[in-house]
């Protein structure tokens, strides 16, 4: 922690105190302001910034305590250290109650003042970091961060804001890769729990034997290998949001255990005897049809209704129209911002392929495709040949039913591969340059830009 450069105001009616202490603090690299009275200090604070105020308790006209009260009202960020020649418990308690950070009895040890200033600066740095982190949470998980202009997504954003304020359990459904966790985070970030933990747990990835331990924790020696006691995800999420992903993959036993917790908000660690109470908001998600699973007896009906208090269904990417292009451009910007690659955007043909593809893997697949293209592209524009083969070939297959279509695609691909070098392309196609020019004109093949 570097305290150099701290702005410190000394308020004392004795000139020798101000000067000597000011010089001593300057030697430590602090910026020092001197005020001979409370009134002068308050006037200086109108147009100057200070981090710490060293304030004498006993001054004529306006006392230190009066100055303290005014500073704490108008500039609460300033940490005030009271200085007094008369140590009395009453005045110290009074000063602390009025918001002083600490107090020093004159004369004090140099080391004492150094440590106190360091502590104040550490506190201020933590407060600033706290504000910055809270802002980052809001920036990272707010709905503003989720791309979506289509009507379905706009409805979902409104629903997220509406349900966030409540404590209701939310069930998010949608195909794999549609952004269910992102929506869960947005619910958390818009709720009163936003500064408490958001704890995701992917139930589908856990072996059945570990689900209980993962969710509820265990005591030391509860089972072979449980060398230490461990808190489960429910305890970790206390006060915050627990995101249970892939709940359709829960075993019948785990369904029973989970139902009990949802009903009672209490559970016991494996091997433990004490009940643990938690205050957790549940957001669950699945890509499976839970209603159908209930009908088939694979999912408990009572648990389904516990989860399905508010449901949000995310549309697959193929149904989100222009969002596909918006998302692709967003991902490209994000990758570009992390590197120095000067990528300007997509060619029209690449965008047409992106728009036309059905994206069975949804947003996740789109992100991967853009990343792949970003890695392989050498120029400033991502062209169709930079996109993953399966996406290009799907497009070509869909379009290549006639002989003419096949020929057009083939010529276009060879031209792209040769960088539109007509001689090389004609040679590869085993036709002369004039014929190639004619075919380009006939099929209206245009160079990607």
């Amino acid at each position, binding site marked *: 922690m*570097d305290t*150099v450069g701290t702005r410190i105001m000394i308020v004392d009616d004795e000139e020798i105190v101000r000067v000597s*202490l000011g010089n*001593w603090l300057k*030697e430590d690299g602090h910026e020092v302001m001197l005020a001979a009275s409370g009134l002068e200090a308050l006037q200086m604070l109108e147009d100057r910034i200070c981090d710490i105020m060293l304030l004498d308790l006993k001054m004529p006209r306006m006392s230190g305590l009066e100055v303290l009260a005014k500073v704490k009202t108008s500039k609460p960020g300033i940490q005030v250290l009271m200085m007094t020649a008369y140590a009395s418990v009453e005045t110290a308690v009074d000063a602390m109650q009025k918001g002083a950070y600490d107090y020093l009895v004159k*004369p004090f*040890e140099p080391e004492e003042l*150094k440590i106190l200033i360091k502590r104040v600066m550490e506190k201020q740095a933590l407060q600033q970091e706290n504000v910055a982190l809270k802002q980052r949470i809001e920036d990272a998980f707010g709905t503003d961060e989720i791309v979506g202009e289509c009507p379905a997504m706009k409805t979902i954003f409104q629903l997220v804001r509406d349900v966030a304020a409540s404590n209701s359990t939310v069930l998010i459904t949608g195909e794999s890769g549609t952004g269910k966790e992102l929506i869960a985070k947005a619910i958390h970030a818009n709720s009163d729990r936003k500064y408490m933990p958001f704890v995701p747990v992917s139930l589908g990835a856990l072996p059945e034997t570990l689900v209980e331990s993962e969710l509820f924790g265990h005591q030391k020696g509860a089972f072979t290998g449980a060398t230490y006691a461990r808190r489960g995800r429910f305890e970790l999420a206390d006060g915050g949001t627990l995101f249970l992903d892939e709940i359709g993959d829960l075993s019948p036993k785990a369904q029973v255990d989970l139902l009990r917790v949802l009903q009672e908000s209490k559970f016991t660690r494996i091997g433990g005897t004490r009940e643990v109470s938690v205050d957790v908001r549940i957001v669950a998600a699945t890509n499976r049809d839970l209603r159908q699973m209930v009908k088939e007896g694979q999912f408990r009906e009572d648990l389904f209704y516990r989860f399905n208090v508010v449901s949000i269904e995310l549309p697959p990417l193929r149904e989100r129209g222009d969002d596909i292009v918006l998302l692709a451009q967003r991902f490209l910007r994000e990758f570009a911002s992390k590197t120095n690659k000067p990528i300007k955007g997509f060619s029209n043909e690449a965008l047409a392929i992106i728009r036309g593809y059905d994206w069975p893997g949804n947003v996740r697949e789109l992100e991967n495709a853009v990343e792949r293209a970003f890695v392989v592209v050498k120029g400033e524009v991502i062209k169709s040949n930079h996109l993953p083969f399966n996406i290009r070939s799907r497009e070509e297959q869909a379009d290549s039913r006639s002989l003419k279509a096949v020929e057009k695609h083939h010529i276009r691909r060879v031209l792209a591969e040769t960088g539109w070098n007509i001689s090389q392309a004609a040679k590869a196609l085993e036709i002369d340059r004039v014929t190639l020019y004619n075919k380009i004109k006939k099929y209206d093949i245009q160079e990607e830009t």
Partner: protein
Amino acid sequence: MLAGANDIAIQPLGAIRPELLARIQASLQNIYGSTAAILPPLKIPREAWIAARQQYDSTKIIRFMTRSAPAAPERILGVCDVDLCTPILTFVFGAAEVGGRFAVISLQRLRPEAYGLPADRLLFMQRCAKAAVHELGHTFGLRHCYRYDCIMFSCCSVEGTDLKQERFCPRCAEKLRDARKC
């Protein structure tokens, strides 16, 4: 030795042993590359005495030096063998005007005997030289350094003084060079 010689003067305040003044003089000349003259001693001003604390106020001593110093030297280091303090701090090893002309050091708390230890002449003189170089560094505008082995490191105990070297770290040396160019 740093380039750019400027005159420094050592002002004994009260009786100071010549060999100690010579040791301080040698260090200042070596570190600052300046001539360091030893001025005739002055009495410590009575006005700086704080009877209630049985100590001298370093700020008042510097003010006294300001009034009684010769005009020529660019910087003057006072050396006294009394315990220094400020109205607000229980003690100081020394004091200086940051970016100014005057500094003062006290020898009182640099002696091992002050801590119940056997006398150690060489260690004592080394501490005095370090304190002199440190306080004079402030008059060149240097602030405390975070490096424990740099002469500009701030320490509230003699143990800290013993840990630091009698030289500037590269960063402070560069700052000193910049200050002397101005």
